[in-house]
Each structure stands twice: as C-alpha cells, then as structure tokens.
C-alpha cells in the first residue's frame, strides 16, 4: 500500500516537475523530408544548446507531408526537397537552406565510370537493358528506383526530364535500401542523395562531371535539388530566429560537415 502510493506520488511529482520545466518554453515543430531530417535534428540540437528556452521537435514523413503540415499548421516549419514546389505550396514562404546533389550510383565492380544524360535516361526508361549497350560488360542492367511520391525520385525525374520509369525497375523505399541493393548487385544502377554516398557503391560522372560539393556549388553538376524550409505567412519570432541560425556560418558549417551542400 505505502510503496505503491509512494511510486504514484513520485510519478505525479515528476510529471509536475516536467510540466513546470517546459512552461515558458517556445516549441517549434519541423516535419517533412526524410533526406533533410537528420540534418535538421543536428541543427535543432545545436540551437537548443545555445537557446535553452526553445524546444524543437523534428519529424519525418516525406516532402509531401512537409508541404501539407506547413499549410495545415501541424508543423511551424515544413521541410521539402523538391525541384518544383507543388501548386498548393505557393502560399508558403519558402527558404532554401541547403542543396543536395543526386548521385547516380553503380556497384564498384562495374567498369563504367561516366554516363551521358541521354544514357541515364535510356537506362531509366528501359531502353538500355544491357551494360554492353553503354560500353560495359555483357550483363543485364538492373534498374533500382524509389517509390512513387518520393522527393528524391520526383526531383531526379524532373531534372532529367522525359523519364517514364521502366516497369522492370526494382523499387526500394529509402536511400539506404537503394544503397544496399546497389552494393549487393554488380549489375545494379540507382540514384541517391549525395550526402549518403559511401565506399560500398560508386558514384559516376554525368557528362564527365563528377558529383562533388564543388561541382554542385559551381553549378556544373546538373542533378541538384534545393532543400526548402516552408513557413506559413512570414516567419516571426523563434521560427525566424531558427531559420536565420541555419543560414548563419555555423549552421551552414553543420550542413556541410554532414554531407549536404550549403547554399553559400
């Protein structure tokens, strides 16, 4: 009896304590793009360290969710990594906080190191089905793509233009599984965010341009998408302060340090 009530009492005390602590804090919610989510979390942590009066929550959900929740007000800041913002996002204030290159990746066993834009289109349209057609070994091409609705996929298709994805394409539902599939299959070709490249896969040159931070900033690498933060109306107060912080040298340094490409 007494031990139970003691536990209950301390729980209530804890709840009151926590509630008391968070009182007076401004809370900001970010939701959307899974590509930018880890970076947003890192930035939020840093910001909260220097601004203890603000509490920032970062949620995923995808670019579509980012746009929707910014419109509906479910999140103060929506995150979207789209080349073209949808029609309904026109009412939102969009701030570009980073850029992300989309790298075309092959298995390291593949000899090909460069493809032209047209060759990439042929691969994803299903016209080129054997690596020998593209100057490689005689082996079938395994196309790996993202699911319909993915921000990375729509950016990829919009930038290249004229792509109707081949029905033979394997579909994976995240950048990570694309990487694993390509790393495991010597005949596979896929695309993923530049920030997620590693040694298990090989990013190739597009029209002789390598996918690096320099080429993306310089504008010579074509497959680049902006990452937007979306705010309903004009950003004010802590929301504005946080976005401004992301655009400071310190914030941009974090973005660069974690593999994305800064806007400046």
């Amino acid at each position, binding site marked *: 009896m007494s031990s139970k009530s003691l536990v209950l009492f301390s729980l209530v005390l804890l709840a009151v304590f926590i509630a008391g602590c968070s009182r007076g804090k401004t809370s900001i919610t970010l939701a959307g793009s899974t590509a930018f989510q880890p970076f947003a979390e890192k930035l939020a942590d840093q910001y909260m360290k220097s601004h203890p009066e603000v509490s920032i929550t970062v949620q995923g*959900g995808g670019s579509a969710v980012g746009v929707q929740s910014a419109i509906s007000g479910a999140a103060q800041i929506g995150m979207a990594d789209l080349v073209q913002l949808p029609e309904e996002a026109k009412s939102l204030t969009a701030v570009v906080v980073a850029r992300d290159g989309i790298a075309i990746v092959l298995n390291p066993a593949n000899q090909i190191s460069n493809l032209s834009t047209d060759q990439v289109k042929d691969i994803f349209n299903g016209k080129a089905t054997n690596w020998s057609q593209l100057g490689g070994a005689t082996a079938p091409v395994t196309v790996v793509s993202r699911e319909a609705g993915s921000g990375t996929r729509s950016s990829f298709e919009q930038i290249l233009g004229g792509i109707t994805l081949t029905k033979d394409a394997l579909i994976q539902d995240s950048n990570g599984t694309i990487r694993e599939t390509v790393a495991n299959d010597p005949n596979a070709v896929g695309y993923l965010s530049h920030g997620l490249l590693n040694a298990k896969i090989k990013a190739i040159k597009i029209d002789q341009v390598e996918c690096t931070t320099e080429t993306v900033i310089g504008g010579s690498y074509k497959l680049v998408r902006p990452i937007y933060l979306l705010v309903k109306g004009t950003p004010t107060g802590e929301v504005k302060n946080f976005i401004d912080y992301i655009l400071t040298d310190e914030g941009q340094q974090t973005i660069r340090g974690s593999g994305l490409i800064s806007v400046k």
Partner: protein
Amino acid sequence: MKLIGEAGVRRILLGTAFSAISALLLIALFILNEGVPFIFSYGINEFLLSSDWDPQANRFGIYPMIVASLWVTLGAMIVGAPLGVAGAVFLSEFVPRSVMRVVKPTIELLAAIPSVVYGFIGVMVLAPLIRTYLGGPGLSLLAACIILGIMILPTVISISIDSIQAVPQSYREGSLALGATVWQTIHMVTIRAAKSGIIASIILGMGRAIGETMAVIMVAGNAAKIPHSTLDSVRSLTANIALEMSYATGLHRQALFATGVILFVVIMILNSFAIMAIRKRVAKK
C-alpha cells in the same frame, strides 16, 4: 471482489469480448469508407484489371499486384506446405513424445522471429545466391516464395501435429492389424483422418503468407509488373500499400486504401475457407 459482484464481472467480460469485434468492425469500416468510393469512381474493372500503375499520372491498375500476391502465396504454399506436413507427420508418428516435446516448441519459436529478420536474411543470403546461380536481379518472386515458405512452417507444422495427434490411436491399430505397413497406415488412414485439420493449417499459413509485408518488400524487388518467370521482381498488394503510403496524398492515397480493400476481401475469403475446414473437423468428431 464482492464490490463488483457476479453480474458486474459478467458485464465486464462481455465488454472485453466485444471490444475485439468492435475493433475489427472499426477497421473494416475505416478501410471500406476510404477505399470503396475510389474503386467506384475510378472504375472497378479499370482498377482490378489494368496493369498500369503510375500514381504520378493518376493511373491506378493493381492487376500486377493481385497476380503477384497470388503467385507469392501459391509459391509459399509449394515450398512450405509439403515441408510442413511432412515434418508434422514425421514428428508425430516417428519421433518419441519426449523428443517432440523439445522439437515442437523450437519450431514454434520460428514464428517469434520478426519478419524483418527473415527479410534481412533473404536480402543478404538468398538474393545473392539466386542472382549468382539462376540469374536475374536476385530480388525476385522465387526469393519471396522461399522466405515466405519458411515463415509459414511453424503455423503449418504445429496445427498439423495437433490434428494428427487428435486421430484416435484405435484407427492406427485397426489399420496395422489389417496388415497395412506403417507408411500405408500413415497416408491411407492417419492423414485422411486428419485431413481437415491439415488443410486448415495450410490455409492459415496461406493467410500469413498473403498478409506478410516487411519480408516481401525486402526480398521481392517491388517492380509493379506482371512476372514472366520466377526470377522476375514482383510487388505484392501489401508491399504496394506499405511502400507508397508514407508519401501518398489525395487520389493516390485513396487508391492505396482501395488496394487495402481488395487485400481485405481476399484474406476474408481465405479465412472463411479455413473456418469452414475447421468446423468440418469438429462436426466429424
């Protein structure tokens, strides 16, 4: 206890019994409400029989996914059912009870392994093997069938064992006394007598195979097209929903709910078959 009383307890238990049913009803209502309007506005024939799935262009044909789900399930049956039934026969007829008391729970433990682990093994071990020795992308219908075949084993084996053990010993003794060999007794008497239970176990396994999502997404490759061989990549109904739900809005989202309606109908039909088979067994006794 006296505080609540007999009638009170009765009412509480009644409430808990109906909570499961009301949850089922709510889920069914929700899915139907979200999905059925879409099926009719889009056209039921177009939705079920078109093989063009392109949500960006507002084309929603789930025929390839229906075909894939059926193939995957059938394939899992072909892999899992003979293995499971044969295993059950061996365990219940040839192995001493003491051994079975160890082996059966171990097999049932297979069911406790999360599907993502099966999927992971499929991706890391099975898919590369298929790609190397049989060709194709590796992530394929065949891989899905094998993984699901293994996943349904515990269901098939444990229910089959129960129904084989429920066959009265006198049947076996009678058969042996008539001069039948052990094998003749097993396949002409024991299995016949346990038939409805064995069929029920296979149908329940089937229900698990058709509803499995995570493992299928990981090993089947998810290409939305009708497979031409077992080495082709396929996308099941469940995978279609799970893959695209996170990004879907508007019509696309409704189409995914409608996919759920079709899946729901298919599973309901399968489960009714299973219940019928089990009832038959009970009626026989």
